[in-house]
């Protein structure tokens, strides 16, 4: 079965490695990510003002276009997932807004699309036990911290992704790959998000706390589902290092990069050149290359 796939802007640029590894892994797992035609930006934030219809139009247009092609829509970026899933729910539950939106975008979308995250496909459709069997090169000995961030989970009532306070789906995934999932208290805390633009110090502090907590609990690597989080906890590590000289850099992977490694993809196809902290020394040390 193939999945209609919405990459989103960042996966087309800065997080190309996230996109490419997901597509490659899908093929090895026996399905295709079929890219949505004529997709646009998801809007990047779900509007909190109740009358801000304009901000709902980009995700609504994506949903409406997707419905013309299928019944599910899959995303990888946690922010796109958040915006699109919440917009879908809003259309399902608010007839007046639905009509208004449809009038704007000149579509007749009824909210009857299922918005999926790639991890959900891995859990529900592939199944973690089956995934474990398909793993060619288990990531044995790798202690990885699953970092959820906020957008996969919150608001809980709308996202319903996993347990709101103590999710385990991401850890279960890592364990299926043969890695050791490290539990740490900051795993669902905010990375600082767009504060890295306006108040970079705030974001650096957030990232430092998250990484510090994971390291303290024994993590050797971080795993992310979100390009925004990755920007703050990977690309900003140089800023952290400037502020905290004793900070020890830690590689940050997209979960699909680890999936690709475990599925036996050549490490040179995993796009590590786009990772800010070079993961190769760690992977060498662990004998995973």
């Amino acid at each position, binding site marked *: 079965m193939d999945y209609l796939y919405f990459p989103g802007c960042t996966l087309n640029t800065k997080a190309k490695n996230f996109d490419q590894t997901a597509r490659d892994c899908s093929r090895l797992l026996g399905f295709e990510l079929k890219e949505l035609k004529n997709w646009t930006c998801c809007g990047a934030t779900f509007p909190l003002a109740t009358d801000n219809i304009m901000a709902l139009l980009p995700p609504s247009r994506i949903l409406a276009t997707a419905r013309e092609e299928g019944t599910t829509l899959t995303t990888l970026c946690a922010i796109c997932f958040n915006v699109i899933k919440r917009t879908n729910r809003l259309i399902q539950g608010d007839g007046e807004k639905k009509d208004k939106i449809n009038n704007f975008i000149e579509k007749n979308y009824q909210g009857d699309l299922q918005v999926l995250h790639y991890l959900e496909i891995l859990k529900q459709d592939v199944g973690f036990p089956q995934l474990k069997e398909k793993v060619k090169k288990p990531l044995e000995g790798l202690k990885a911290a699953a970092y959820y961030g906020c957008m996969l989970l919150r608001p809980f009532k709308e996202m319903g992704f996993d*347990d*709101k*306070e*103590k999710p385990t789906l991401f850890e279960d995934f890592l364990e299926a790959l043969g890695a050791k999932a490290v539990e740490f*208290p900051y795993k669902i805390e905010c990375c600082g998000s767009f504060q890295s633009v306006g108040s970079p110090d705030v974001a650096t502090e957030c990232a430092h706390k998250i990484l510090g*907590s994971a390291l303290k609990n024994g993590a050797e690597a971080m795993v992310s589902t979100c390009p925004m989080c990755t920007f703050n906890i990977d690309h900003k590590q140089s800023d952290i290092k400037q502020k905290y000289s004793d900070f020890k850099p830690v590689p940050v992977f997209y979960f699909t990069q680890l999936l690709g490694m475990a599925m036996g993809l050549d490490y040179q196809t995993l796009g590590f050149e786009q990772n800010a902290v070079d993961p190769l020394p760690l992977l060498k040390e662990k004998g995973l290359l």
Partner: protein
Amino acid sequence: MGENGAFIKRAMVIGGGIAGISASIDLGNGGYEVVLVEKLPSIGGRMLQLSETFPTLDCAQCTLTPKTVETGQHPRIKLLTYSEVDSVQGKAGDFRVRIRRKAAYVDWEKCTGCGLCQQKCPSKNPSEFDRGMGLGKAIHTLSPQAVPNKPVINPSQCRYFKEKKCRVCEKVCPVGAIDYEQQDRFVEERVGAIITAVGFDLIPKESFGEYGYGNVPDVIDGLAFERLNSASGPTTGEIRRPSDGKIPKEVVFIQCTGSRDPDRYMPYCSRVCCMYTAKHARLYKHKVHDGQAYIFYMDIRSTGKGYEEFIQQGMEEEGILYLRGRVSRIFRDGEKVVVWGVDTLTGKKVEVSADMVVLATAIVSQRDTKDLAGKLGIKTDEYGFLTEAQRKLRPVETDVEGIYIAGCAQGPKDIADAVAHANAAASKVQGLFAKH
């Protein structure tokens, strides 16, 4: 009606907590026979778990034990503990109540309450009475002052029931009271009126994901703190935290845990948490002089007599730090329990690296209250509390004549209000009996 159709002037009280005890003594002293049915092995209820009580800081056991003893010895009160109501038939003046007397596996007629079986029993288990902190025996009474002072065997903990060996209690019992073959039995009581005083429970701390789902060992609930502070508790009254027995130097108390939270838990105010949290913090300071107590609160609701003064004294004289705001997360970090909250008066985020956290968890109805209400034909509200006939003017009556309610079974109450409610229920019963 009773024999010859006469109105039976004998009452049943269901629930042997402070409300049920108060109502029973009132009725007994009023000259009526009372059957007091309690599902636990002994009476005293929640109050027996408390250390001291607000706003006077009286020892709960010192004030309660005379009442339990009076109940146990009262010539007109018949105690049926370790018993539950099975079915109810009839109407005011002639209720026929079938009662299940649960198998204690001890012949209480023979038992002298010497306590030897409990001393020698080799099976130690976390004690429910001590909120899982201390160890209790498989054959046990709830407390050393239990009324009646007769033990029961918990078959799920007893080695003999589980592995068919041991029988130590049988060997040591000097009067041969142990009876592993005992079965539940049923008795019928005929009464003219029933007071339902089945009390409350606390929302389990395992419900709160943000507070670690009960998996952080030094996050306890209010009743657990009562046991820690109680001379009869697992630490003989020393404030020692469960994980390693150390004396906590920084303790965070969180009010409204699960109360006043309509989106996620209970929308109502549990009424006692403001006061008992202040009491906890003050008692903690009395025992750990160099310790710091923090209280996170939403509002302070101290509407009883002497209550506001009690709170003020805690703030002004005992150095308790009140922070107006909620706590969003608790997690364990090494030996510490990290608390993330907010002080909404300064608008600042607050992080406390605490040694122990006490959650003032919401008062909820007992799980089986709804079932009992069904048997009695009375109503419960959406939260399982018993519904009174009229909110303001008929606070102890129900829609069924001859059936009354008392205490926290109707909704959260402090001890004084529960006792007043019970006194009112007892006087209603006496009024009913006087009419016939």
